[in-house]
């Protein structure tokens, strides 16, 4: 049994979770329990949200990652994990701390963005964008410059527009690590056969909530150089809506109206911008510089 802290929750887990910060002190009554338990197979009362995920009428959530694990998330306070025969725990944890934990946060009513949150000047910058665009690589570059990371992959946003400290372990491909001049050899693989590694922020973990000052939606482009374009009004709102974490689950759980409200609220308090970066041969540090300049320039 280990106690952890993430997203403002005291988490007690039957599975060791080295990717999460330990709870600052022993937890008398956890907010969220992670248990090893069989996941129900019966389909009655469940509505499929895809071939591998389903939601029940009471908002319970079920998901299967074939040959890795099944998850059953209920009431925002319990995640049952049923590892597949022969599955390695690193792989189980990867999906537990992503989609399963995300489902629990949704059940608790949180607005979630798919991206990462990095502390800048007492506030934080949230980078969102499609898988593979380089969000985690960017966060690692900021970490290397002394900024702290609140969360990677899932950013929980409060109604007041703060990002909560969450899972801050950065998942980086070998190629990205080399560009950052970091040594993959010292890091654990996120899955046994993949060249993808977990970079724990260590002292670079920001364990406090921070107001979101800026949201940057990253996109590829054919043009050379980095281009930052401020979005306002409808465009800002749409960028936030479109970068919601697991929008399919949000819809499945009937949370779309709340999601849209939260996106609109955040569009009002954070500076939202679209960032185009070149497809090939861009310098990560140039992107960092451009973002820092943008943040310093407009306030």
């Amino acid at each position: 049994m280990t106690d952890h802290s993430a997203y403002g929750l005291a988490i007690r887990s039957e599975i060791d979770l080295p990717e999460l910060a330990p709870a600052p002190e022993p937890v008398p009554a956890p907010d969220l329990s992670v248990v090893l338990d069989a996941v129900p197979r019966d389909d009655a009362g469940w509505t499929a949200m895809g071939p591998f995920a389903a939601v029940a009428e009471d908002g319970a959530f079920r998901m299967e990652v074939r040959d890795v694990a099944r998850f059953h998330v209920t009431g925002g306070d319990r995640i049952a994990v049923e590892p597949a025969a022969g599955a390695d725990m690193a792989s189980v944890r990867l999906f537990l701390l992503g989609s399963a934990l995300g489902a629990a946060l949704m059940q608790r009513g949180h607005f979630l963005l798919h991206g990462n949150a990095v502390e800048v000047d007492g506030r934080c910058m949230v980078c969102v964008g499609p898988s593979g665009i380089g969000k985690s690589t960017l966060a690692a570059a900021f970490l290397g410059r002394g900024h702290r990371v609140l969360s990677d992959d899932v950013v929980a946003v409060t109604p007041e527009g703060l990002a909560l400290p969450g899972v801050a372990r950065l998942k980086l491909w070998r190629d990205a690590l080399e560009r950052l001049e970091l040594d993959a050899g010292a890091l654990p693989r996120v899955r046994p056969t993949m060249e993808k590694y977990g970079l724990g922020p260590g002292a670079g973990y920001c364990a406090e909530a921070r107001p979101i000052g800026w949201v940057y939606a990253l996109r590829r482009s054919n043009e050379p150089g980095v281009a930052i374009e401020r979005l306002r009004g409808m465009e800002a709102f749409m960028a936030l809506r479109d970068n919601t974490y697991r929008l399919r689950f949000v819809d499945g759980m009937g949370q779309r109206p709340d999601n849209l409200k939260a996106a609109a609220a955040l569009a009002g308090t954070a500076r939202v911008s679209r960032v185009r970066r070149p497809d090939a041969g861009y310098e990560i540090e140039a992107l960092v510089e451009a973002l820092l300049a943008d943040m310093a320039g407009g306030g």
Partner: protein
Amino acid sequence: MPGLHWLASYPKSGNTWLRTVLRNYVVDGPEPVALDDLGTGAIASARGWIDGVLGFPSADLTPEEIDRLRPDVYRWSAEAGATTGHHKIHDAWRLIDGRPLVDGEATAGAVYVVRNPLDVAPSLASHLSCSVDRAIEHMGDPDYTLSRQGRRMRDQVPQRLGTWSGHVEGWLGSGIPLEVLRYEDMRAEPEAAFARALAFVGLEVEPERLARAVAHSRFERLQAQEAETGFRERPAKASRFFREGRAGGWRETLSDPQVARLVEDHGPVMRRLGYLDETGAPV
């Protein structure tokens, strides 16, 4: 019959041209549609599509796992009626653990575009910024895969192409309802060829509207558009996507040994498609 429509081809065979005509036909505007707005539906290997349906990221999966899950993604999308439009696919049609990558439940049909491998080779070389000899090797490599995943991630999931011949034989032997379009016929008689494709995907063919769409999609126009506004499907290393756009250019580009190599590698399928005559000579 419910199911997805695929626009399938080995790369550099005219798939983009087909999509351009299709899009221009559907939009039927006074101006050609923008190149970055071909919008016919996500490519089969798009992570956004796959991840959205899976509910967990393909970026956290091995290539083998992604392969095994893709048939479920397409089945779900077809059943849920969740996608509109026509989806490009470069993957070879193949069985994964006994299941077709795209099966009869997921698929209403596919337009399969094919082009003389003698013209594909130089086009592929230009696209990949490699030598023609290297491109010929790729075309003969049963393991050839686009967007391979190893030390880094690509914006699409890995797409196993296999050999050029295997690609043709796979799709033609898949049992999926198919309309086969030869690039050379698209060049020689575009309206007849594209009419077949439109009808196959369930669009009513209005001849004048098709003529306008074909005119909007003329190669010179696509080249000019690319020069002006770029084309996001151009690989960063290639100088341009729309390079030559004609049939038979291989006679000026390929050496005799290169032609011989391609004919040796792909003769039977070339003959089947009419690219070699009875004597085995290129047509």
